[in-house]
């Protein structure tokens, strides 16, 4: 059962909303119903968010993102359509039951933090539990735990205005975590932060997500952020869904020109991972083969190297045409001594931005190796360069390799932006 399911959601502001929904459901663009004097903010949006997923809704300003996310917790009632949380339709709940759902199942993080200025950091973080009527001791203890999770231990007795933007948003995050709901809605939660702090927060969110396994609906207008965080991304355009898919699907297989244009200048090297550009590992040879057999395999495939893998596809190393030719000439019985075992290995989830260095120093294609040490693909240098060019109208690299739907979400924070205590100190100034 999906954690969140939106079905044919519409939100139209204005008196003649029902009429507008009727016209819009026939496929009209929102500019075509100007005469009704309504604002169609969200039009026929359907999606499902699985438990534990980070689902990103991305679109330009005014595309209806905030309106959409506010319908997910009932802050705005939809004009038409339904929202199901854990299988129950919240659009049909009484206001009392709706409040119960909000305090027990969904919490929210806001663009401008929305911290209560007259409460301390601790009281802010404990707010959700206070509303639920949890005793003071217990809620403060849980709030302290959440604050330490987001790295704000020791700040609990300050008031929000004493904190920098990044720290304030961590309080916002701690408030959502303390409420201990399975679902967290984040409306442009990092958009008001400086780029460096923003990256920092993204990394922290991914880290937290890896341990806590929340279901997160994350709103952003920043494609790079969407690509970095989202297990799946929903691109909104003028209130309608333009495409829903993984970062790679959207990059490599844009559903239409709009999405294609949108993703044109995304930093592809940070979004695409080794698995999305790698090629099938051909040819491979078995370590039991003799040099002659190996040489034949290499020649048949018209290459200069072959990867040596065991029967269970675990990578042993690589042999080059030259080395084997030498071995054949000296009449060696097996490949021992010919196999280079110190070749570059990369994980399928590594962003390709981090592959260039290795590719540049290695004379051979990079071997893509999974957690068990099995060879899953190879990346010749030329492929790496080709990946940088945007696909031409929806084709391109999509054809290459198997499209593993591996999100970039588990990538470690890039080395150029270490989170140090020093930096945190600076944020407070």
């Amino acid at each position, binding site marked *: 059962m999906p954690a969140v399911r939106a079905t044919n959601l519409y939100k139209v502001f204005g008196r003649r909303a029902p009429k507008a929904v009727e016209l819009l459901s026939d496929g009209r663009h929102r500019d075509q119903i100007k005469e009704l004097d309504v604002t169609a903010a969200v039009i026929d949006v359907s999606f499902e968010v699985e438990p534990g997923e980070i689902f990103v809704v991305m679109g330009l300003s005014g595309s209806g993102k905030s309106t959409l996310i506010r319908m997910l917790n009932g802050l705005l009632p939809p004009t038409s359509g339904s929202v199901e949380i854990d299988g129950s339709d919240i659009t049909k709940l009484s206001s009392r039951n709706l409040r119960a759902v909000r*305090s027990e199942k969904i919490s929210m993080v806001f663009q401008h933090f929305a911290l209560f200025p007259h409460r301390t950091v601790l009281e802010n973080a404990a707010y959700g539990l206070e509303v639920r009527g949890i005793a003071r001791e217990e809620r403060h203890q849980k709030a302290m735990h959440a604050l330490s999770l987001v790295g704000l231990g020791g700040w609990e007795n300050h008031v929000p*205005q004493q904190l920098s933007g990044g720290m304030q948003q961590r309080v916002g995050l701690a*408030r959502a975590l303390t409420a201990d709901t399975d679902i967290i809605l984040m409306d442009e939660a990092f958009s008001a932060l400086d780029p460096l702090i923003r990256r920092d927060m993204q990394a922290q969110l991914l880290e937290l997500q890896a341990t806590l396994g929340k279901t997160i609906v994350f709103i952003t207008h920043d494609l790079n952020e969407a690509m970095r965080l989202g297990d799946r991304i929903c691109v909104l355009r003028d209130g309608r869904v333009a495409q829903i898919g993984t970062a790679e699907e959207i990059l490599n297989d844009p559903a239409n020109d709009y999405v294609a244009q949108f993703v044109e200048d995304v930093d592809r090297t940070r979004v695409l991972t080794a698995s999305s550009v790698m090629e099938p590992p051909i040819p491979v040879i078995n370590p039991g083969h003799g040099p002659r057999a190996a040489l034949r395999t290499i020649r048949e495939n018209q290459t200069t190297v072959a990867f040596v893998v065991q029967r269970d596809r675990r990578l042993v190393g690589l042999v080059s045409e030259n080395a084997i030719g030498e071995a054949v000439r000296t009449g060696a019985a097996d490949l021992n001594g010919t196999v280079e075992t110190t070749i570059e290995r990369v994980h399928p989830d590594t962003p390709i931005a981090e592959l260039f260095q290795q590719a540049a120093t290695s004379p051979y294609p990079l071997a893509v190796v999974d957690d068990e040490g099995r060879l899953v693909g190879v990346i010749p240098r030329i492929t790496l360069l080709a990946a940088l060019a945007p696909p031409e109208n929806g084709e391109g690299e999509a054809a290459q390799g198997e499209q593993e739907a591996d999100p970039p979400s588990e990538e470690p924070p890039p080395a150029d932006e270490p989170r140090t205590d020093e930096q945190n100190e600076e944020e407070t100034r």
Partner: protein
Amino acid sequence: MNAYTWLTPFPPRLPIGDAFEAFNRWLKSNFAPVFDVIGDTISWLVNLLSSFLTEPQAAQLTFIAAGIIAAALVRPHRLPTLITTGVVLALYIGQWLFGLGNLIVNQLPAPLFLWAMGLFGQDYVDANLVIALGFLIALVVIAAVKQTALRRAAVVGGGWLAVILLGWLAFPAVPDLIADSTAMLMVLLLSALALVVAGWKLSLFSVIALTVIVGIGQWENAMSTLSLVLVASLIAVVIAIPIGILAAYNAVVSRIVKPVLDLMQTMPAFVYLIPAIFFFSLGAVPGVVATVIFAMPPGVRLTELGIRQIDKELVEAGEAFGAPTGKILTGIQLPLALSTIMAGVNQVIMLGLSMVVIAGMVGAGGLGSQVYQGISRNDGALGFEGGIAVVILAVFLDRLTAAITSNSPQARAERSAAS
């Protein structure tokens, strides 16, 4: 004969004034008991306050001291504090209804009181004072046992002791030096209030300026005016804030309230006096009623503004975590609107002061009647002295409420952020 005689000239004479009169008469004849209750309550409040301000009783001072300590204790030790307060209130009601306190005092051994009676030169025991003393002592004991709010209890208790000793021992001992000892005691008390709320500058001003009022012989009038203003402002605020909240929540209410407030504020102040006298006859009550109507609008407006100007995201945050409307109002909107609301209260008090002077014309008493007498007898000196006293009161009240405003949670948070 002209064929058009059945036509009245345009515009016809509209009987708006008469309609208003008729409406008032209808109101009075149908709701006379309501107006009686309102009038009695107002005059009871005004008398209570002005008698306290001019002749403070030991029982009243003791009760106030106990009240301050109770307020400090009620959060950390809800139960014992509430029980004590409840018992005391029950005793007071018993005393008020059938002299319960006197009964109890009579049961207690006489030597317990003889010493105190001798010390203060009293020939009877005031049961109210005994109850208040018991209240104060109980709370000080709670504070001492629980080790909380000890400092506050000590300061208030010590201050109370000093006041009693000053008022009943020191001042009478030097009658040649201090002419009006109760007035000077009150000057010191008000200055102490200023010290606590607004700091030493206003406190110093109060000592000097209020002594000037005593010196020009306007103390009683000033205190009478002060009690009129405070009662009128209290009523105005109690009515204004809920209306302001409604107007902030509901666009229709807001649209209806706005023109009504405009009308109330622009109508010449004197006009309110006429129906007020009609309903409540001469005296303090019509003055207070007219003042309430005249002074209320900024209270409503600034309450509405204060709530409306709160960041929408903050209210949404409350909603998003499932808080019910009441909790959002009391936990988010009112605290954050407090400084704006207090600015409104400040304006209510200032308008109230200006109106109370006008109300002197209908026999509300106080400084207003002094000024009015000055005008009618062409007595410039009297008018000027009354005016000076009004100005001093105005400054005192303005700075005091302004200081309360800057003590609001929002302002405190901002200040600590700046530090």
